[in-house]
């Protein structure tokens, strides 16, 4: 039972101290599971990250499942994932319970949020812009990005369909190019 508790505790710490989520969590996860606990080595960590990013869902959950599974199979996964989720669950629940109704009615908080809202838009725009610049001006990926934006923003197509369609375009585009380069 102690080993399960250790897994839970390590991921509880990761879940509790990584504000902002996502990529901000990666260095903390590495320090805890590679450097301190030595549950997995550096190469495995890199492979795990690739998988965690490729699979759907938050990176924190995906890495928790992986490390838990590696140590104690699915039972380990349950403890590590619970640990990763619990801190944010409790904190947000408290905010929702006591804070959600005063956000709109409290004059001071409303002023603060008036300043925050446009900055949130900037925070989302930055990674999109970064990825766009990184991908460069290649026709196919640029076209997929633009079509995805237009479908979601103008035609209100569900992002689920956009994801499925983009995966299929990638798959059949790759197969098509394979056939043509062989001839």
């Amino acid at each position: 039972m102690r080993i399960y508790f250790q897994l839970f505790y390590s991921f509880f710490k990761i879940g509790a101290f990584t504000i902002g989520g996502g990529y901000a969590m990666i260095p903390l996860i590495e320090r805890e599971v590679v450097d301190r606990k030595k549950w997995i080595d550096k190469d495995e960590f890199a492979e795990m990250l690739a998988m965690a990013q490729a699979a759907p869902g938050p990176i924190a959950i995906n890495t928790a499942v992986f490390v838990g599974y590696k140590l104690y199979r699915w039972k380990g996964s349950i403890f590590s994932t619970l640990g990763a989720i619990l801190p944010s669950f409790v904190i947000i629940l408290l905010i929702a319970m006591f804070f959600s109704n005063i956000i709109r009615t409290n004059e001071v908080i409303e002023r603060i949020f008036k300043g925050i809202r446009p900055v949130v838009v900037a925070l989302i725009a930055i990674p999109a812009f970064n990825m766009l610049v990184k991908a460069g001006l290649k026709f196919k990926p640029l076209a997929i990005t633009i079509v995805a934006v237009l479908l979601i923003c103008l035609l209100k197509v569900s992002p689920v369909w956009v994801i499925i369609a983009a995966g299929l375009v990638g798959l059949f585009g790759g197969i098509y190019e394979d056939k043509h380069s062989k001839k």
Partner: protein
Amino acid sequence: MIYIQLFTSFFKIGLFGFGGGYAMLSLIRDEVVDKHQWVNSAEFTDIVAISQMTPGPIAINSATYIGYTATGGVLGSVVATVAVSLPPIIIMLLVCKFFFKFRNNNKYIDYVFSGLKPAVTGLIAAAAILLVNSDTFIDYKSITLFIAAFIAGYKFKADPILLIVLAGVAGFILY
């Protein structure tokens, strides 16, 4: 039945949430603002702001928050949070099981991701674009704050939490 709707909505978000945090925002918005109207666009922006300042992934944060506000109870939070976590847990367990088989890169999987990657960029961009409205941009001060934050974050890699705190202070002073 609201609990079943919450479960299926957040299960879908977890299942198709490729590309992590910001990319999932488009999915979350589509379900909770456009389809079910559990929160409006302004509240959605506030949830994003709150999840930036609190620990944990945005998907979990928004599930917990919306689960509570949509039902008015803790059970709603539990249902939505479990629903959004289940698909990634199941998928990662399967991936782990076949880890060593998957290790040798399969080219068809690479092809699928060559299409998914640029789409994820589009999903994030769409999430940002859809938040540009009269709730987030009320006057020239909002536009100035947006530009300042974008430059600070993009050029100088300023910490998102710091930017939100500064924006809150600016809002308090300016409005």
